């Protein structure tokens, strides 16, 4: 039922439509602290994805009856800008997809946060997708995790994420928009890299248990690379702050 793709998804020489190898990530740029008002923020560019995450909190929670006596409430809003998508303008009202993704992203981040340190508080994670190019929920988790760190919220670990996919029978890493649209399966995975545990795990498409095994291992390797980039981005921000302090900016 899916129409055929505008370009071949796998070229005769065994490359993907954007020239990558099966186990190759797209170029990723991460920047921490991009917004002034938010307590923490980060931007990710991954392929043509452009996504900004902002964190506010820990802060007082309104209405108060939603507060929890023993831990902070983590709230998350994943949202796509109307101009971020291919084709027609997307309505700014949250779609069912955005509501689901807000939930799974929240649940992917939650295990990494010491929520119990901030009873009765809220920690708000806001994600705006400015341009979408496949794998936005994983890229959002990568950025949100950095924004949480930037906000100084104590974390057990960062959370890193990547989507593997099934494209013309091949299991490939970090699928792009075309592979998502015309491929046979999508499997977004998030992990706490140093602990090696899975905090987001979804799939569509048809997979044998063996394919899942292979895909998860491929995802894990990609996640470890992204984790290095995350640490590098935090280090850069930290050095910049140090520098600013030293030169008295």
């Amino acid at each position, binding site marked *: 039922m899916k129409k055929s793709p505008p370009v071949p998804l796998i070229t005769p020489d065994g490359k993907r439509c954007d020239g990558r190898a099966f186990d190759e990530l797209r170029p990723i740029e991460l920047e921490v602290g991009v917004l002034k008002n938010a307590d923490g923020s980060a931007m990710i560019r991954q392929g043509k994805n452009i996504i900004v995450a902002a964190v506010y909190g820990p802060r007082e929670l309104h209405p108060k009856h939603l507060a929890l006596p023993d831990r902070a409430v983590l709230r998350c809003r994943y949202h796509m800008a109307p101009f971020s998508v291919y084709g027609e303008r997307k309505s700014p009202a949250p779609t069912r997809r955005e509501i689901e993704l807000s939930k799974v992203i929240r*649940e992917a981040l939650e295990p990494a946060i010491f929520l119990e340190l901030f009873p009765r508080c809220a920690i708000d994670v806001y994600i705006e997708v400015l341009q979408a190019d496949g794998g936005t929920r994983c890229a959002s988790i990568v950025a949100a995790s950095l924004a949480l760190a930037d906000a100084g919220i104590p974390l057990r670990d960062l959370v890193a994420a990547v989507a593997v996919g099934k494209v013309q029978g091949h299991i490939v890493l970090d699928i792009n928009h075309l592979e998502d649209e015309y491929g046979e399966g999508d499997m977004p995975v998030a992990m*706490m890299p140093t*602990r090696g545990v*899975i*905090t987001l795990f979804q799939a569509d498409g048809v997979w044998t248990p063996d394919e899942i095994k292979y895909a998860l291992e491929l995802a894990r390797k990609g996640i470890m690379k992204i984790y290095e980039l995350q640490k590098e981005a935090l280090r850069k921000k930290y050095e910049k702050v140090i520098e600013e302090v030293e030169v008295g900016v």
Partner: protein
Amino acid sequence: MSKASFEVIPHLKKKTIYAMLQQGSRIDGRKLTEYRQIAIEAGIVERANGSALVKLGNTMVIAGIKAGIGAPFPDTPDAGALMVNVEFVPFASPTFEPGPPDENAIEVARVVDRGLRSTGAVNLEKLCIVPGKHVWVLWCDIYVLNHDGNLIDASALAALTALLNTKLPKVTVEGGEVKIDERTLEPLPVEHYPVTVTMAKIGDHIVVDPCLDEELVMDARLSIAVNEEGKVCAIQKGLGGYFTIEEVHKAIDMAVQVSNELRNKIFEAIKKVGT
């Protein structure tokens, strides 16, 4: 955050659940890999094109299919449409509130939908009447009547049963006009049979088909949709806990194993009403 997740479970009961799991048993007497009793009744709502009532222990959901003729989606002009909607009516639990579906109900709907869609359960191309103009549009509405845990599996069972129970009037196209023959009914082209198996992680234990008490203490949830070939056709991890890679593989094996039992219950229910 659903209010349900804040529901208070007595401390003692929580301790009991953990202690029993340590012994390899569960609060309601089941084994860790044991599903609750399943009762499926197909065809209970005549006004619907198809319907099913599913009971998993005390969990109770009803699904009804309404078919109409409408325009196709612009990007799939040659295919009918299937929409899955789940409502957690206040009816079903003291913690459900009136209003449009919240994130929990939307998640259930989207997981059920994903399982059906990934494996091509309904052959939507056969629901095209005039390409680009007229197609069958199916609405699968799932109502939770009583919530005692594991609404994802119950909803998936109800949806597939209702689809298998669905009959559409025969349509013909004459001179561009669609004619509906209400007296000649044809079964919906259902070609695959995905069922979903949900597991809860409680401490270090993984149990199949959690009841509400177990859901109130579980750390994480994993739902695996499996088709009739034993292939996985949708995955959804839920809640703010995590799984190790080993736990995931163990859960997938468990799901593949249990799935046949669930699928057979559906076939039995369909056989009973003779479709």
